[in-house]
C-alpha cells in the first residue's frame, strides 16, 4: 500500500447514527482505523433491538453476551458516544455533512453511516389475531421478554400450557397490511422459539403455522429439522385465518391444513405472532420504505448523498451477523469514499 495514500483516518470524523449491532460494528471498525467517531443513539443505552432478545438463532448464544462483546468493541477513546440523543437531519456542509441533533451545535463529519434499524410490525393491524385484545396472544418479541423473565411467566393458571401455536408471516408477505416483502428472519425465530418452548415444557404440543418455510441461513435448515425430529414440533402448512378467545381464556384457532386440503381448528394457551420487520425512522427517510442504494449489489451508498451509507436493517431485514458485516462494510466504503476525494 502506498504510504501517501494512507492519509484518511485521524483527521477525519465520521458520524454513525444508531448503536445497534450494525452501528456498533461500523463504529468499532472506523475507530480501529483511527477515525474520530460520533456514535448517536436515541435510546439511553446501546444495543437497539438486541436488548429485547433472549437467545439468538441458530446456535442459541445468549443475547446479552453477544451484546457485551459488541460493547467491548466500541470501548475506544476515539468513539464519542451520544446516548439518548437522536439525530434530526443531516445537511451537506463544507464537502461533508452537518449532523443536526437534539442538543446544541451540529457536528460536522466527513461521512455518515445510517444504522437506524427497523421497527417491529404492529401486530394489532392483523386484527383477526386479536393482539392487544386477547391477553394470551403475544408477539415473538413479547415471548423473548418472557423467556428472559423466566418459565413461570408462561404458565396458564399456574399449570404448564397444553398447547402453543406460532403464526409465521405476521406483517410479512401480506397485501392486507401493505407489506409485500418477506422479513426473512421470522421463520428461524419461530423454529428457535418453538424449540425453547419444547425445552421448557416437553409435554406441550407446539404447532407452527407457515405459508413457506424460509430457513435460508447457515445452520437454519438443520435447526428446522431438529425442531421436527428431536423436539416433535408440528409444522402445519397453512396460515391461521382467525383467532378468538374461548370461555377458559384459551385461544381458538382456525386454519386450513393446505397439504391435507382440510380446515382445522385447535385451542392453545399461547398464540405467538412472528412479527415481521418494518422500515424504521431515520433522518434520511423520504418515504416509509427501507433505504435504497445506488449500488445495491456491491455496496450501500444512499442515492444522491455522497459519503452517506446505510448499514444493517434500515436497508432491509437482516440477521445479526449480516448486520455486523453490513456495518463493517459501510466503514470500508467510507474509507474508499474519503480516499477517492483526496
Amino acid at each position: 500500500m502506498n504510504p501517501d495514500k494512507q492519509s484518511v483516518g485521524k483527521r477525519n470524523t465520521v458520524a454513525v447514527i444508531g448503536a445497534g449491532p450494525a452501528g456498533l460494528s461500523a463504529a468499532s471498525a472506523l475507530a480501529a482505523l483511527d477515525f474520530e467517531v460520533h456514535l448517536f443513539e436515541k435510546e439511553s443505552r446501546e444495543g437497539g433491538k438486541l436488548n429485547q432478545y433472549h437467545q439468538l438463532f441458530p446456535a442459541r448464544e445468549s443475547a446479552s453476551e453477544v451484546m457485551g462483546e459488541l460493547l467491548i468493541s466500541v470501548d475506544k477513546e476515539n468513539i464519542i458516544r451520544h446516548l439518548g440523543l437522536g439525530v434530526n437531519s443531516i445537511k451537506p456542509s463544507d464537502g461533508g455533512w452537518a449532523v443536526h441533533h437534539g442538543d446544541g451545535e451540529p457536528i460536522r463529519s466527513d461521512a455518515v453511516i445510517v444504522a437506524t434499524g427497523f421497527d417491529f410490525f404492529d401486530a394489532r393491524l392483523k386484527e383477526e389475531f386479536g393482539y392487544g385484545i386477547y391477553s394470551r396472544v403475544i408477539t415473538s418479541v413479547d415471548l423473548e421478554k418472557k423467556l428472559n423473565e423466566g418459565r413461570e411467566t408462561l404458565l396458564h393458571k399456574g399449570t404448564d400450557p397444553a398447547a402453543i401455536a406460532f403464526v409465521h408471516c405476521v406483517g410479512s408477505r401480506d397485501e392486507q397490511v401493505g407489506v409485500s416483502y418477506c422479513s426473512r428472519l421470522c421463520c428461524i425465530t419461530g423454529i428457535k422459539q418453538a424449540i425453547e418452548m419444547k425445552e421448557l415444557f416437553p409435554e406441550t404440543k407446539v404447532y407452527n403455522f407457515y405459508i413457506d418455510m424460509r430457513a435460508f441461513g447457515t445452520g437454519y435448515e438443520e435447526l428446522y429439522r431438529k425442531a421436527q425430529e428431536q423436539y416433535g414440533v408440528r409444522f402445519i402448512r397453512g396460515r391461521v385465518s382467525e383467532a378468538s378467545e374461548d370461555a377458559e381464556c384459551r385461544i381458538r384457532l382456525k386454519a386450513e391444513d393446505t397439504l391435507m386440503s382440510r380446515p382445522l381448528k385447535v385451542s392453545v394457551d399461547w398464540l405467538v405472532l412472528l412479527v415481521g420487520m418494518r422500515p424504521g425512522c431515520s433522518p434520511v427517510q423520504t418515504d416509509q420504505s427501507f433505504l435504497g442504494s445506488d449500488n445495491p449489489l456491491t455496496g450501500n451508498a444512499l442515492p444522491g448523498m455522497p459519503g452517506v451509507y446505510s448499514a444493517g436493517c434500515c436497508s432491509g431485514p437482516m440477521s445479526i451477523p449480516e448486520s455486523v458485516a453490513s456495518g463493517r462494510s459501510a466503514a470500508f466504503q467510507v474509507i474508499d469514499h474519503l480516499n477517492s476525494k483526496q
Partner: protein
Amino acid sequence: MKNRFGFEIQDNRQIDLDLADDRVNDEVSAIIRAWRSCLKCGNCAAVCPEGEGVYKLDLSAFLDLSAFQKLTGLDKCYLCGKCQLVCPRGIPTRFVIMQVINYMKEYGKAV
C-alpha cells in the same frame, strides 16, 4: 339421511386437533423419529408404483387415528422401498409404512 325438514345436517370436515387421537402417530414417531422431519415434498409419491398409498402417508405425520382409518391404499404397499431411495430427509419410509400398518392393527382395526 334427510330429516323431516327435507335435508341432511352433515358433520363438519374440520380437523379438531384438540380431539385428535395421536396414538399411531406417537408410537411410530417414537420408533422412527426421522418420520417427523417429513417435508411433504412428494418425492416418495412420485416414484410409488402403487400410486396412491404412500402419497397419502407422506402427509400423515399430522393424521390422527380416524384419518388413518380412511387411508385405503396403505395395505397395497409393495414394500419395494423406492420411496426410501428418493427421500431428501433420508426417512426409512418402508419401515414407517410397516410400523403404521402394525399399529393400525392394534388401535384402528381398519387396515
